[in-house]
């Protein structure tokens, strides 16, 4: 890698940890004005408050919005130099009939726009193998021109097309990563394979070229999104490129702050979720049809609150006998216990759930009698009441079937 490429790459990847949080906002060029990018300037102002390391734009938007990138503290600018219709699925206007990719700018054009890197796709799995060869030839040409221009090339290798299926997907991600590396990519944007073990193979295929994980998947929740980031960093990824999960968020800066806390500060996801701006859950929703009766929720509840496995110490219970049906019974935060307590030992806490103060309590048991679901209990001289684990309910965390869900 030449000096220009190295210097520019170092403006994208943080010098302290070699990692990057990048926001992709180039969707309009391929999908039209989808939500979040209609008024891109306004969205980006909010995005930039969250301090991303770089933002990916089309050449036209880069020309229009370059003022957002002025100054040393501003994010770095990445410019997409190719185009494809691949992502126009049935939900978009003019769904794709035949996949195409085109070059829309040269690395030199991107350099003139002030870019710190050029970004291009590389698809493998075309039905017509000549298409794959031509796409690789285009990326190779970009690599050559980027080397001359002193501009890093970020390649987005991606298995795509009718030959790609569930069983070869992971292997093809690794294959496409290696193809991109050997073609001369200086960094990669890579889709997540779904589990850390297979992603480890993908990272190994990159021969040490930094891998940024794509947020193209639809995360179930922010927690889910942050978990994926932590998992991929754990097996050697160097950061993330998130698009819609950020630009379509109601508060992009808050999402980015949480992502940065994981990527750059190395904080555990649980702490970030508990301490972040995310709305805290105020109650649990139960889906009894999903419950397998495994009792992990009751075990983890007693363990996390009392340090022991004792179902009597658990704040919830699972009703039903093998082989089911089962029904988890949890506190609904109805506050009848609060109303029944004459000594005000029970109250709604600032975090939005019922809290218990030992000093005021005389263990009279009125709260236990008031609970319509009989989940409030006195055990070991303490009132056991669901505190939603101060914002990250462990029963929800551990339920493998999502029979328990935290509701804001």
């Amino acid at each position: 890698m030449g000096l220009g490429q190295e210097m520019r790459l170092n403006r994208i990847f943080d010098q302290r940890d070699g990692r990057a949080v990048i926001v992709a906002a180039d969707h309009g060029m391929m999908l039209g004005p989808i939500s979040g990018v209609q008024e891109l300037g306004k969205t980006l102002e909010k995005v930039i408050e969250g301090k991303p390391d770089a933002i990916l734009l089309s050449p036209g938007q880069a020309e229009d919005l370059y003022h957002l990138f002025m100054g040393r503290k501003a994010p770095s600018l990445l410019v997409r130099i190719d185009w494809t219709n691949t992502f126009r699925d049935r939900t978009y206007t003019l769904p794709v009939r035949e996949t195409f990719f085109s070059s829309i700018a040269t690395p030199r054009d991107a350099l003139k726009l002030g870019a710190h890197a050029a970004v291009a796709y590389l698809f493998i799995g075309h039905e017509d193998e000549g298409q794959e060869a031509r796409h690789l030839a285009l990326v190779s040409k970009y690599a050559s021109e980027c080397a001359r221009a002193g501009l890093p090339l970020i390649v987005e290798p991606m298995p795509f097309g009718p030959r790609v299926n569930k069983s070869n997907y992971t292997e093809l991600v690794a294959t496409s990563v290696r193809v991109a590396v050997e073609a001369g990519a200086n960094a990669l944007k890579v889709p997540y394979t779904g589990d850390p073990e297979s992603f480890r193979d993908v990272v190994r295929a990159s021969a040490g070229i930094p891998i940024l994980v794509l947020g193209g998947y639809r995360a179930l929740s922010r927690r889910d999104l942050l978990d994926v980031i932590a998992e991929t960093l754990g097996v050697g990824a160097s950061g993330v490129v998130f698009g819609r999960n950020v630009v379509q968020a109601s508060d992009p800066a808050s999402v980015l702050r949480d992502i940065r806390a994981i990527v750059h500060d190395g904080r555990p996801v649980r702490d970030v979720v508990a301490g972040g701006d995310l709305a805290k859950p105020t109650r649990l929703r139960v889906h009894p049809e999903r419950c397998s009766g495994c009792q992990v929720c009751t075990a983890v509840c007693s363990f996390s609150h009392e340090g022991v496995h004792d179902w009597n110490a658990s704040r919830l219970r699972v009703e039903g006998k093998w082989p089911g049906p089962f029904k988890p019974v949890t506190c609904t935060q109805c506050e009848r216990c609060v109303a029944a307590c004459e000594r005000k030992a029970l109250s709604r806490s600032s975090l939005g759930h019922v809290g218990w103060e030992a000093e005021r309590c005389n263990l009279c048991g009125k709260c236990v009698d008031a609970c319509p679901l009989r989940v409030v209990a006195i055990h070991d001289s303490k009132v056991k009441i669901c505190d939603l684990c101060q914002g990250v309910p462990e029963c929800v965390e551990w339920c493998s079937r999502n029979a328990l869900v935290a509701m804001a």
Partner: protein
Amino acid sequence: MGTGKDLRISEFVDQDDKRSVILQASQGIMLGPSGDERLDEALERLAGAGVDGIIMSRGLANRYSRIFRGRNSPAMIMSLDWTNAFRGSGHPLPMMRLEHLVLTTVEDALTLGASGVSAYFFVGYERDEYEARNFESLAAICRECDDLEVPLLVQAIPVGERVTKGNYADSLALASRMAVEAGSDLVAVPYAGTAGEMERIVAAAKVPALLLDLELKLAQGQPDLGLVQATGEALDAGSSGIVLGRRYLEAEKVAEAERLIRLVHGG
């Protein structure tokens, strides 16, 4: 051949015995990673074991330039092209129709510090047009190599169903001679089947001919033979060494690679 080519060839053909052992390390750009490779370790060990040259793709050359530093290191030979020919039935995208395309210019290879370049030439394409295109791109590379004085190694390989047991050696002779006439400075050819055929092909090549280690059966007529025996025969037939396939990047194959290096260079 001018000064530049002569000097650069001497960087990967041993000057005492005029022989060479070249390692193919660029197949990842066509195939992806192989199961349990440890690329940097393997490259270092094989460089230490005494391979004369290593064929690299642009990206890997960049990444592992340290392997090539200093006068005692192997020379870097840059792979210029891409093909799906080596995607066998075990690959997630097995080849359906043979494709070949040039990806990198000779000038780029030279800029990146290569001592030589490598390209494929296939005969036996289902459609003759594809052979014509492959030859055309090969000839263009040859002219660029002449212009910049960069030596070219062509891997000449018969492929496909038109190649049978009966015409394999002839197809190989054709591919190799076409490559030479286009202007390649060295050729690498798979084993021809017998010592006699090997001798005929090596003699017809006129330029140094190396035995090419093919891991995959690319044509029905392609003969099977252990690489050690084939190497012995090829050397007896006058060939100038071998091109080792990427299976030699696997840790347990290093000892065999060392044996082959001794077989070629003696000692």
